[in-house]
């Protein structure tokens, strides 16, 4: 989280700022509020029920879930910053196709990078990395936030969504790998474990995400639960 804090500081450099310690000053900043709201209150997976394809397709192992989350994070931040930087140039009539092309460009870069430097991981994730293009919240952040805000604030907003998404996917991957293989990040935890086959097959993904959504809603019923297209 340290790099997140340093990234948030520039937004509070006004006259009275230096007198207050950082720990009290930080939660008051706009960037920090966006970040926390996106990670928890509007968590893309368990709150908004967005981006379900990679959430289920890429979480049979903890490492896959984490990699998919980080790939999405990078693509989201890069796309949001690009859209925010070009927000005064793109005519509003053609903004959605333009956003799609910007997102497709960044996802292509992430996909080629993974194929070149981490081929086993790229093979394990398969088409779910290219499918970040149709990830509802990447376009959602571009349209709802980056098209009206500065690149810096848009980067924080995208970072919050990306971190919330990475957290959710890693959590799902940990549970599925632990119950399905008895291991964690490839290290055997339970010896002589009888694998729960249901956790590895698609059915387990649906059941587990459904349970998580129920648990999150049960313990903090306040926020909205989405279910968009």
């Amino acid at each position, binding site marked *: 989280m340290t790099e997140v804090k340093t990234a948030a500081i520039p937004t509070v450099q006004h006259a009275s700022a230096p007198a207050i310690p950082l720990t009290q000053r930080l939660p008051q900043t706009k960037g920090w509020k966006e970040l926390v709201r996106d990670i928890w209150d509007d968590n893309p997976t368990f709150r908004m029920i967005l981006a379900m394809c990679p959430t289920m397709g890429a979480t049979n192992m903890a490492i896959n879930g984490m990699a998919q989350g980080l790939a999405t994070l990078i693509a989201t931040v890069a796309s949001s910053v690009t859209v925010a930087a070009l927000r005064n140039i793109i005519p509003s009539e053609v903004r959605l196709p333009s956003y799609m092309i910007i997102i497709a460009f960044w996802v292509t870069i992430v996909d080629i990078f993974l194929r070149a430097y981490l081929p086993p991981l790229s093979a394990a994730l398969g088409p779910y990395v290219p499918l970040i293009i149709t990830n509802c919240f990447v376009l959602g952040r571009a349209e709802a936030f980056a098209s009206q805000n500065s690149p810096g604030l848009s980067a924080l907003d995208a970072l919050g969504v990306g971190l919330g998404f990475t957290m959710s996917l890693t959590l799902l991957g940990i549970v599925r790998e632990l119950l399905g293989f008895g291991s964690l990040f490839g290290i055997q935890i339970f010896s002589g474990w009888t694998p729960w086959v249901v956790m590895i097959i698609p059915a387990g*993904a649906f059941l587990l995400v459904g349970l998580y959504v129920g648990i999150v809603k049960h313990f903090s019923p306040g926020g909205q639960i989405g279910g968009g297209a």
Partner: protein
Amino acid sequence: MDIFLIVLGAILTNNILLTTFLGICPFIGVSGEYASASGMGMAVIFVLTMTLPANWLIKHFVLDPLGVGYLSLIVYIVTIAFLVQVVEMFMKRFLPALYSSLGIFLPLITVNCAILGGVLFAIATWNLGFMESVAYGFGGGVGWALAIILMAAIRERLRFAPIPEGLKGPGIALIIAGLMAMSFVGFSGMINIRDFGG
């Protein structure tokens, strides 16, 4: 015979929604009502059957000869967006009755991962031939429509069921989808679309 097997396989054994998780967001979001679920299902069948062969032709006659495979993602998504727009305009002009029932779902289709996902699986991962791609596009659409219509029918019954507060809405829908996926496991192994690839 192969074509028939691929259509059947795309519906049952390689169901695009229940085995490869494509198009779950609209599956959860639009399955609340039977009428809108069947509308969305028809729109997916229509668009998937058109975009798969179109992207197949683009890959084999434009991208591969020019050696610009790295542009494939951008070209696929632009083609999908373009075709959806054309279908929408065509329907509005010549099939107004169909347009009034499917029209609102068409713009949503561009960001439906079932379309891009179907293209990526059939063309990039499995490397199917042209007729096989058409069959997979149609079968995949029918399989997706089957799943969302089944789900909508179940959810209409659920309105009167005593569900725990936290699970109401998307939670219980996902768990039902899990049970459906489990029953579809019964079909697995009959046909494997991967075997038809080159």
